[in-house]
């Protein structure tokens, strides 16, 4: 076990996989950094430090700086994948899927289906997402609900360095397009990571991070930590929370959620997407449809309001689900009459 940061887990996994398989190729804006400047490659840039040093190790053929055209990055990744490479493309901010959506939604996600299963498209698209960095409405969004709703894509959302390791490796070795969402606020979080260079976590397998018998809390990303804090506080009062991190939203580990609700009878879903047509709404509906008889209270969701992410620090804090808001929601389902 090594202790490393979330961003280091991303970097080391990509490096290990590039070493293992020469077909793995990295591309994106500023992934080398410094190309064309006086200092030369890697002198500056690489804003998330998730590709630092790859250029020196694997060369210009396998670590490619692209023009500032997200559509071109995704199109190139799609082409690479169709011709036998395993591209790991980086979208600097998840918010930019808008301009590249045709490549992702109509091309990457559809190839296997439109060619009758005769081709595969093993591309990984990494993107940084999430609010809390005071980066305003166009650089702070949560987009996983949009991508989860697109058949043909697998959507992965690691919340710890170990999960990054296991899930990113599975994503790179997977033969289908995988969206790999990295929460900005977690890049600096440290954790234990297995050394095994074949350590993989299968998709569709949730992680239970706290166990308890009174309420089920489902969350992912930055907010998962908030939920764990609430669970720890309530545990001191004798109230037990099952905290479930689905880890992948497509496929979704329905069984883990339904099993847990069968025991607790109460559900709170905490998510960073806006409330309408969201992951929280999806999971509440799942439980209402398939575990209605187990429920002791209506499922509750804690999400930001139906507005863009605000810029002002105070407003952004008010916008995001917080520990007090999550705790209030949990207490509300517990006190349902």
């Amino acid at each position, binding site marked *: 076990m090594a202790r490393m940061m979330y961003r280091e887990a991303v970097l080391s996994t990509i490096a290990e996989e590039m070493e293992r398989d020469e077909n793995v190729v990295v591309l994106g804006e500023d992934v080398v950094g410094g190309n064309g400047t006086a200092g030369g490659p890697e002198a500056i840039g690489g804003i998330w430090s998730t590709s630092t040093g790859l250029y020196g190790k694997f060369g210009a053929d396998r670590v490619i700086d692209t023009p500032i055209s997200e559509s071109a990055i995704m199109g190139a990744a799609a082409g690479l994948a169709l011709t036998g490479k395993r591209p790991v493309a980086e979208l600097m901010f998840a918010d930019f899927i808008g301009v590249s959506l045709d490549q992702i939604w109509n091309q990457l996600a559809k190839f296997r289906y439109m060619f009758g299963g005769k081709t595969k498209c093993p591309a990984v698209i990494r993107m940084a997402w999430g609010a809390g960095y005071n980066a305003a409405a166009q650089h702070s969004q949560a987009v996983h609900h949009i991508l989860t709703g697109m058949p043909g894509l697998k959507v992965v959302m690691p919340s710890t360095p170990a999960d990054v390791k296991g899930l990113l490796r599975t994503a790179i070795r997977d033969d289908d397009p995988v969206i790999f969402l990295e929460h900005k606020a977690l890049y600096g979080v440290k954790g234990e990571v297995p050394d095994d260079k074949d350590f993989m976590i299968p998709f569709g397998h*949730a*992680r239970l991070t706290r166990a308890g018998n*009174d309420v089920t809390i489902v969350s992912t990303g930055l907010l998962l930590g908030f939920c764990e804090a609430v669970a720890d506080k309530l545990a001191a009062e*004798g109230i*037990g929370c*099952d905290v479930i991190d689905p880890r992948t939203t497509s496929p979704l580990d329905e*069984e883990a959620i339904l099993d847990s609700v069968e025991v607790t009878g109460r559900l709170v879903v905490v998510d960073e997407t806006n409330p309408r047509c969201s992951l929280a709404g999806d999971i509440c509906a799942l439980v209402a449809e398939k575990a209605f008889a187990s429920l002791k209270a209506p499922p509750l969701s804690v999400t930001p309001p139906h507005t863009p992410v605000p810029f002002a620090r105070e407003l952004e804090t008010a916008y995001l689900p917080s520990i007090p808001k999550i705790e209030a929601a949990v207490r509300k389902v517990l006190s349902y*009459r």
Partner: protein
Amino acid sequence: MADIRPFCMPKWGIEMTEGTIAEWMVKEGQTFSRGQVICLIETDKITNEVEAEYDAVLKRVLVPASDQPQPVGALLGVFTDAAATDAEVDAFIAAFKPAETGVAAKAASADAAPAAAAEPAPAAAAPEPKKIVTNRAISPEALKLAEANGVDIEPIAGSGRGGRITYQDVVQAMRPERAFEPQGPADLPTETRAVFASPLAARVAAQYGIDLSTLKGTGPRGRISKADVLGAVKPAVPEAAPAPAFGAPFVAVANTPAVQPFDKVRKVVARRLTEAKQTIPHFYLRVSARVDELVALRKTANVVMGTKASINDYLVKAVGMALVRHPNVNVQVAADAVHSFPHADVAIAVASPKGLVTPIVRQADRMHIAQIAATTRALIDKAQAGRLSFEDMDGGTFSISNLGMFGIEEFDAIINPPQGAILAVGGINRVAVETADGDIAFESQIKLSLSVDHRAIDGAAGAGFLQTLKALIEAPESLFS
């Protein structure tokens, strides 16, 4: 201002509508502390202790012990701190409205007259409709409901858009606060890197000490699910040491018990059986019945009807018919009344994986044998699968417990309240009997033992029922009349 709090009839379980105070363990004016037993409350199912949730004084007792049953939510007494004056308490009682508008309020108008004679009225008057004038956002239906039931909407935090008070919010406000008993945190199962199991499966595995790596997953994507783990659970009995070899000196080995805490079903069974055996004055009536004709008839009748009715199904029919002829045995015993029924709802004791259960064959007297056979088959299948619902087991006017298939000759059963009697049925035995002409012949007999609640059923009534039952069994063609 003194701290004054009402003490109302609690609601234990969904079907509880009223309860009776059996005894006040704290006297009026006495101080009590948290955890102390304040009183005993009886329902038609159980008698429970009410423990104090905080320190206070029992300032006023409004309903003395052994009084009439009180509806859920009715004011039973008043708790105060030491400073409260009588005037304050009187004012509190006069202003009191039961939280449970449903049960207590409906009963209040009926009870008001007798209660007023003995005590200052508990003032559980029906909620008065009142016009609500408010600036708060509230849906029209919610407002109508609140006005009709006199609900104070000010303390309600609206859950609708922009804090608007919804119909559901008002319904919630009308319901009594539910005591929430936390089940508490659980141990986090350690995630094994090599084996993938659902979190619940991992928890169940830890509970039973099962190594997940020994299991094969049948869940989604090859995962180990809860069912896989439960399938691997073996009953926990410590392995017995082998008997010592012949000639070897005897050495005592450890004889540690496998501790199996009562599960929920077991707890209820244990409590109800103890109460039944301790509180019901049982007496027992025994008789043997000749079943040669029944055994022979069953074979032919089953072929003719195309059914697989068991001897027990025929007994259920016979019992149903006998009960209808003896309505004084076809009874449920309430606290101070006997309810006798025109039709026989016969409960059959079934051993299920979860323990003893008693699903009910409704109106067994009105069914023919094939219908009874189909009904009991369905109930037994449900019991084995652990899927019996509350409705399958609620009520009943009589029970049959049959241990004949285990070779038991005869036994006595414990009455299953609120029923008045239970029949224990033994196995078929060949018995030598004297024939009419003084010779000896063999016949098949079963032994029946009737356990009777003497509070409701006298010896003669029970004996009359058994006599009818015996006659029906010995002349089984009458079961088809």
